[in-house]
């Protein structure tokens, strides 16, 4: 057990180092994310003019939602894990994992956790710098349960994010190019994950349907819990559905991995 932990701790440390090497990428990504936030401010600011409330939420609550979404993305969302996995399958790097007692999923997951820890902590720097100005626009709820359950929802969301990226990476066993699949699903994920607009602004029937899809639990759910857009009952129900999706996706990962290996022809070495 301890030996296993040491094994993946190494992967975790390597993940951290390689992320610190690419700090330029991070700086660029972070910089342009704040531009995106400017678009959100301008668009929603204009939409709220003459309306005190939209969908039962004030402008500040909506701004808080988008800020939280942005920060959480750096903590839990999968950036390019799918491409990295695809690359490793294509150029034969995964062959070494087939010969050694290392679980490829856990190995990649350790790197993912390390990478998100680095990018998540780094994004706090610009956030703290912007806080004096942002502060007036933030409207965070005060209930303590939100932070506890929100943290659980965040962790489960990270697993869902990674599992979906892992699935797309494994598609490389069947298809040479996965980029179009990834970008297609990115459109669906960002829409149904609540990155384009808060999902609760959709017509109630559509919102209800979206609650049963895995995308809902990728980003929207933890953000909505933390920023006060879901009540206690809805949060508990959400955590149940989210857990179910975690189990389904993990099982599906294993299934794809087994099936994929049967087709794998170990190119390179």
């Amino acid at each position, binding site marked *: 057990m301890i030996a296993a932990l040491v094994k993946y701790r190494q992967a975790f440390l390597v993940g951290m180092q390689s992320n610190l090497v*690419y700090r*330029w*990428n991070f700086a*660029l*990504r972070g910089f*342009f994310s704040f*531009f*995106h936030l*400017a*678009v959100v*401010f*301008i*668009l929603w*600011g*204009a*939409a*709220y*003019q*003459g*309306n005190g409330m*939209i*969908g039962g939420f004030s402008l500040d609550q909506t701004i808080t939602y988008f800020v939280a979404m942005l920060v959480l993305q750096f903590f839990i969302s999968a950036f390019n894990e799918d491409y990295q996995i695809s690359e490793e399958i294509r150029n034969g790097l995964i062959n070494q994992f087939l010969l050694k007692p290392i679980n490829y999923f856990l190995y990649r997951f350790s790197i993912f956790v390390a990478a998100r820890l680095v990018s998540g902590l780094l994004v706090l720097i610009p956030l703290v710098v912007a806080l004096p100005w942002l502060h007036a626009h933030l409207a965070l709820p005060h209930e303590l349960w939100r932070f506890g359950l929100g943290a659980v929802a965040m962790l489960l969301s990270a697993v869902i994010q990674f599992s979906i990226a892992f699935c797309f990476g494994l598609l490389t066993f069947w298809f040479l*190019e996965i980029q*179009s*699949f990834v*970008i*297609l699903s990115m*459109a*669906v994920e*960002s*829409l149904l994950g609540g990155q*384009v*607009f808060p999902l609760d*602004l*959709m*017509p109630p029937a559509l919102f209800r349907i979206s609650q049963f899809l895995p995308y809902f639990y990728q980003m929207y759910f933890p953000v909505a819990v933390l920023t006060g857009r879901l009540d206690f009952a809805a949060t508990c129900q959400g955590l149940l559905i989210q857990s179910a999706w975690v189990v389904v996706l993990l099982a599906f990962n294993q299934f794809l991995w087994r099936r994929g290996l049967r087709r794998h022809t170990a190119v390179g070495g």
Partner: protein
Amino acid sequence: MWRYLQIWAASARYAVVRSMMFRFDFLMWALVEFFWIAVNLLLISVIYSHTDSVAGWSKYEMLLLVGTSLLIQRLLMGLFWSSLFELGRNVRSGGFDFFLAQPGNPLFMASTRKLDPDSLVNLCVAIGVVGYSAHQLGLHPSFAQIALYALLVLCGLVVHYSILVLCVSLSFWITNAQGVEGSYFTLAEFSRLPREAFRGAANVVFVWLLPTVIITNAPARTLLHGFAWHDAVWLVAVAAIWFVIAIWVFQRGIRRYSSASS
């Protein structure tokens, strides 16, 4: 000039043949673009289900604006995106040598190497969005108005192209920064917003300093409210200035380029 057009036509022919060979790929990418267009339209539809006006623009006026932005973006994606995206990668990998060795302007050769028929298919969707909004608004633009709209959209294309060239040229200086091309999308987001929504510092930066807002607002206003000289002159001037800056930076970049391959 004629020779360059011939080269471009040859690239186009090659792109069409290629996408007919990889039909599944073509279909997937056409679908990808269509989905992203749908995402933008759904955002408008959700916002307007809660309000009647955003910065004085009604739902269909806004749709016309977004359609115009999508139109310019599809033109850029269809004609130049793949080539310019590869340019950044080639600079990093040293593959750019190949373009320098060709008997032609390096920027032209590198910008027109690949076309994306899938984006050009979605051009029809974007035109459809503009046409549908115009119909819903009961607009009957004159021929001159449509011609001016087309001219301004072309100016918008020039501006987008210049911004993308500037982003990609960064890789001459920052060779280990991947994904600078993505920054283009962030700037393009501003082009879907009405100019009236910009206040204070945002107004100075995004309306006056960066041309991202004017390139869609000027053509959309031409269809909505008719001919406005100052908008047209401004946009043509802005397009010319940004094009010159992009070429200048690109040329400076080439001077710094030291082939990375051995």
